[in-house]
């Protein structure tokens, strides 16, 4: 399979994740769609790593996975804190910072 196919699949997954971030209102699902976008980036990085026959892209992918794990950790902590304070679990309702 040529590398083109992998990069195209990666682009498609990224766009699906972007649409999910823009349409869904539950912050849990928004976090899941962010995971989709990060994974699409991972797939592109690993495809390019294969293209050059070099391991550097895979190190990038590992760092991206670490950052994604941190983001999940903090995001889920925020959602649990919102639930504890009886705030609505809906990104359209949380608008205090909107001004």
């Amino acid at each position, binding site marked *: *399979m*040529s590398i083109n196919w*992998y*990069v*195209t*699949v990666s*682009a*498609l*997954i*990224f*766009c*699906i*994740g*972007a*649409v*999910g971030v*823009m*349409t*869904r*209102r*539950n912050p*849990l*699902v928004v*976090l*899941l769609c962010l*995971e*989709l976008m990060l*994974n699409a980036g991972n797939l592109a990085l*690993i*495809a390019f*790593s*294969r*293209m*050059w*026959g070099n*391991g*550097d892209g*895979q*190190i990038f*992918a*590992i*760092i991206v*996975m670490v*950052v*994604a*794990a*941190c*983001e*999940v*950790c903090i995001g*889920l*902590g*925020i*959602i*649990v*804190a919102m*639930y*504890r*304070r009886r705030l609505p*679990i809906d990104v359209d309702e949380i608008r205090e910072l909107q001004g």
Partner: protein
Amino acid sequence: MAELFFFIAAIGAIAGATGVVILRNPLYSVLALVSHLLSLALLFLLLRAEFIAAAQVIVYAGAVMVLYVFVVSYVGGADEVMSLTGGGRTQRLLAVAFGAAIFVELAIAILGTGLKALDGDGAPFTPGPATFGTPAEIGRLLLTDFLLPFEIASYLLLIAAVGAVTLARRRGGLEGGEAVLDRPAIDYARPSYTGTMAEGVGGRRALPRPEEQGAARPQRSGEVPT
């Protein structure tokens, strides 16, 4: 053979991604993401990234998704109300159009790129212990060429762990609205004589009332004190 596996994995990955976006129940979205991650691990294997594929299955599809399932169960994944009227619908249509525009743009970039190697199968690959996907090579790269990112990533994980504990803890004791239970919660739900040895041998002798024990405890009459 590689083509067959590629199409199976790619269709699985795209179907899983679509499921995450479309399914209404957040728990089903999480399960769709798990299937997406497993398909993606197969794609990584096809790209000769064995270590990343294993880490994807173990860390991502295993640990991180378990965290998601816990939080969805705790928060109670309420079904999202998909209103097709009002401002929500135009926003949804705009979002889909925007996503399609991003994809067209990316496709133009991929097709019109000057990278000739994109059309090939990649660099020549000879299996062995020192090729680029093996754990040995990843470890060598992480501890030599990429030592600084490695250390920064470990600090980032530490900061994230501390931040999550700080965010999710109870602030200054119990917040309002949470009942203080001085007995096991099961004691509030049963009549006073059940669940005792006395009931087991047939006697219906009631337990001593809490006030008889001298403690200022709430009545054991079934209701939870507020």
